[in-house]
């Protein structure tokens, strides 16, 4: 794989996920220091700080790059802050990668952290009658799980997915998450427990919907040349592709926070892949690989049912075959292509700006063979997939 698209991952670090109730800066700082330690670098070696923003923590959250830089101690490093909903972390990775590939810096630090309120995500405060995110709560009472549930019901209708399948995804991810010291939920669950948990948005139950969490994640990225000098010639884990594509018109699947899809009257339905599929397809193309090359995947399981959609959208199987993959154990630890060995959102809950970074952290540890208790043997190629609000999504390829 040519160097011209790759950046090295020298360090990965996290603050454990939970409901700690402290300031988000504390989590980001802990994650940044852990990543720098992991890289064997000091803060003053960092030339570019790339923050992933949080919108629920006041002004410091909107300029997260500067907030983290100040917390680490002003050093004169250049800075960027990015918001892209659930894909914010990957957008921050993309900004750092572009700086490195352009030769504008050698070492960059990417940080995302969040402190979340209890319960359903609500729109940010104030009466904003021109904001679809405010209006969907006001006029429809449509929460995030409403949309996840619409996809889940559609999947049952089209492909014969069952409530047992959705519960099995949760059981699988809880088992993996139990071995992950950074996960918030570290208890195995049984299918019976999942199916006995309260219905939130039919057909999705409480244990199948991702919680909102506090947490922080960070990466130290560098040029491949710097990494080889720094590591004494050994080849580091690297990132050959970051996709942050937008949807293509007409987007015919209802997406948060919209009231309606695009109209396909003028141009007909898109012939190519849907949005979720296009996110990872672009990453594969950029990396020069295909889904058959992937050893391990971290996908955005906002609900247990949505993980099944991702199996198809990242190309692990054809449309309608995800349930078979699951039932055959292919995506469990020890299976042919383990998905969410970290435990996924199911075990973490969502700390929005940290989440896409955390996905990459997990792949880095997997590819280094350091994911104790949940290791995918011999993993050399990993892919992440993520979808957020307002046409944001991301996919990152990580290779060894």
């Amino acid at each position, binding site marked *: 794989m040519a160097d011209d698209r790759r950046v090295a991952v020298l360090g990965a670090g996290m603050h454990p996920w939970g409901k700690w109730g402290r300031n988000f800066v504390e989590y980001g700082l802990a994650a940044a220091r852990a990543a720098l330690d992991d890289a064997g670098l000091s803060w003053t070696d960092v030339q570019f700080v790339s923050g992933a923003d949080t919108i629920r923590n006041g002004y410091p959250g909107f300029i997260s790059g500067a907030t983290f830089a100040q917390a680490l101690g002003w050093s004169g490093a250049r800075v960027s802050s990015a918001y892209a909903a659930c894909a914010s972390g990957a957008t921050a990775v993309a900004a750092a990668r572009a700086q490195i590939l352009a030769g504008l810096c050698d070492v960059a630090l990417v940080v995302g952290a969040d402190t979340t309120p209890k319960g359903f995500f609500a729109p940010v405060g104030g009466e904003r009658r021109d904001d679809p995110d405010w209006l969907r*709560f006001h006029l429809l009472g449509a929460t995030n799980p409403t949309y996840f549930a*619409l996809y889940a019901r559609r999947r049952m209708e089209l492909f014969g997915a069952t409530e047992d399948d959705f519960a099995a995804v949760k059981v699988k991810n809880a088992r993996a998450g139990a071995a992950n010291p950074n996960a918030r939920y570290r208890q195995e669950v049984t299918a019976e427990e999942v199916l006995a948990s*309260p219905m939130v948005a039919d057909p999705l139950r409480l244990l199948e919907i991702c919680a909102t969490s506090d947490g922080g994640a960070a990466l130290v990225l560098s040029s491949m040349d710097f990494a080889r000098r720094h590591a004494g010639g050994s080849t580091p884990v690297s990132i050959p592709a970051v996709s942050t594509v937008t949807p293509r018109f007409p987007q015919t699947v209802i997406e948060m926070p919209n*009231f309606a*899809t*695009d109209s396909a009257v003028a141009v007909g339905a898109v012939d190519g892949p849907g949005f979720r599929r296009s996110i990872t397809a672009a990453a594969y193309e950029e990396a020069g690989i295909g889904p058959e090359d992937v050893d391990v995947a971290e996908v955005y399981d906002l609900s247990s049912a949505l993980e099944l959609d991702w199996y198809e959208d990242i190309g692990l199987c054809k449309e309608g075959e995800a349930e078979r993959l699951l039932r055959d154990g292919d995506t469990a630890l020890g299976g042919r292509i383990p998905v969410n060995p970290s435990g996924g959102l199911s075990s973490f809950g969502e700390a929005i700006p940290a989440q896409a970074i955390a996905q990459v952290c997990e792949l880095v540890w997997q590819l280094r063979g350091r994911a104790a208790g949940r290791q995918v043997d011999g993993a050399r190629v990993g892919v992440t997939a993520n979808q957020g609000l307002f046409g944001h999504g991301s996919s990152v390829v990580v290779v060894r």
Partner: protein
Amino acid sequence: MTTKTRVPAVEGWFTAEGGEPALLGSRCRSCGTYAFPREAFFCRNPACDSSEFDEVPLSRRGRVWSYTDACYTPPAPYVAADPFVPFCIAAVELAAEKMVVMGQVVPGVTVDDLAVGDEVELVVDVLYEDDEHEYLVWKWKPVGATSGGARG
């Protein structure tokens, strides 16, 4: 008997004139692309740079693309009845407009009453109320259902 004034919970998104409730969308004068809610200054079609749109009523009937319910009270700015009464939400495919539009389903309908592909029609119903007003919104009502909604 209520004497409250009935007002739309949102201005200009739907009409109930003449007893024929309909969503008000926009249709691009150049390429024909519909939008809901209305677009006023851009067409979503990347091949179209038109800025002229007609306000049009959307199809009053469609088929359920998918559906779910809200078993827990949604957070503000949703104004929930106390005690909270769970409700259904449907995403409904409109054939002529080739688009899917979400809406609450009229009270009294549960997920057990719904199926993908079912025909539903648009009604106007009360979303919430205060001391002086009833605030109205569009809802989907299964065709053939005998109760709920259609009070607009």
